[in-house]
């Protein structure tokens, strides 16, 4: 599915996740975050960056890994991205939906 966000053409899967991280930029992140009902602030960006780094290194993401990242603990992660933190944060970060149960 092709769509235009912040003046840029991007490809999304049916669930709204970016198909190519190279198309991602901070404006697109802001836009997707708004769709998820999240206003991005200073504390969100390091988390998004961490998720992208992990994705580039092909590490399977989990709540536990984010909690051990040294960037946020699990409580803070839930507070920053309420209502499904790993899913929402991944979508905003432009990486695929994690297939994780943990």
């Amino acid at each position, binding site marked *: 599915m092709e769509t235009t966000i912040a003046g840029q053409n991007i490809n999304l899967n049916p669930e709204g996740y970016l198909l190519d991280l190279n198309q991602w930029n901070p404006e697109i992140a802001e836009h997707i975050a708004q769709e998820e009902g999240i206003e991005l602030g200073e504390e969100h960006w390091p988390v998004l960056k961490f998720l992208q780094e992990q994705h580039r290194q092909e590490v399977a993401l989990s*709540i*536990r890994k984010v909690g051990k990242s040294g960037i946020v603990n*699990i409580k803070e992660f839930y507070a920053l991205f309420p*209502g499904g933190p*790993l899913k929402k944060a991944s979508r905003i970060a432009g990486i695929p939906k994690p297939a994780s*149960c*943990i």
Partner: protein
Amino acid sequence: METQDINQTIEKPTSKKVKKMMLILSKATIDNVYACFILANGARMEGIEAEIFFTFFGLEAVQKKKLEHLHVATVGNPAMHIPTLLGGLPGMESFATSMMKKEMEKLDIPPVGEFIEILEASGAKLWACKLAMDMFHLERKDLVDEISDVLTVGDFYQRAEGENTQLLFI
């Protein structure tokens, strides 16, 4: 009152999306404990509320002295695919359990104690059953700090009020 009810039905059919999972853990075999924790954690990851009521042997999973020593059952468990007599040999349960724990660590599944911390941090509510506590002569101090309170069955059911709540017995 009647008019209001009718209007509600016509205007907006109630959503079927699960809002809250209420899990009752009554067993202490490690596979049951993990099934329960993963379901509760998975609910929170989807933005669904989650609560666990620890009753009977399920209380072992939240007792400070016992939670890191839970075992998989090697006797009376056909899924182990070993003869019952062999499963009953000394050390078999420990062996099977340590094998299982190794496999789980590979999948990034935390040990029981850490899992309880994760559940608490994710906003899951953990309750201990009053009757089972009395039966096993347990006190609040025997349980991990993440337990919010000791409840009766009635208290727990009251917390299940509200739309789209599911109860699950493990």
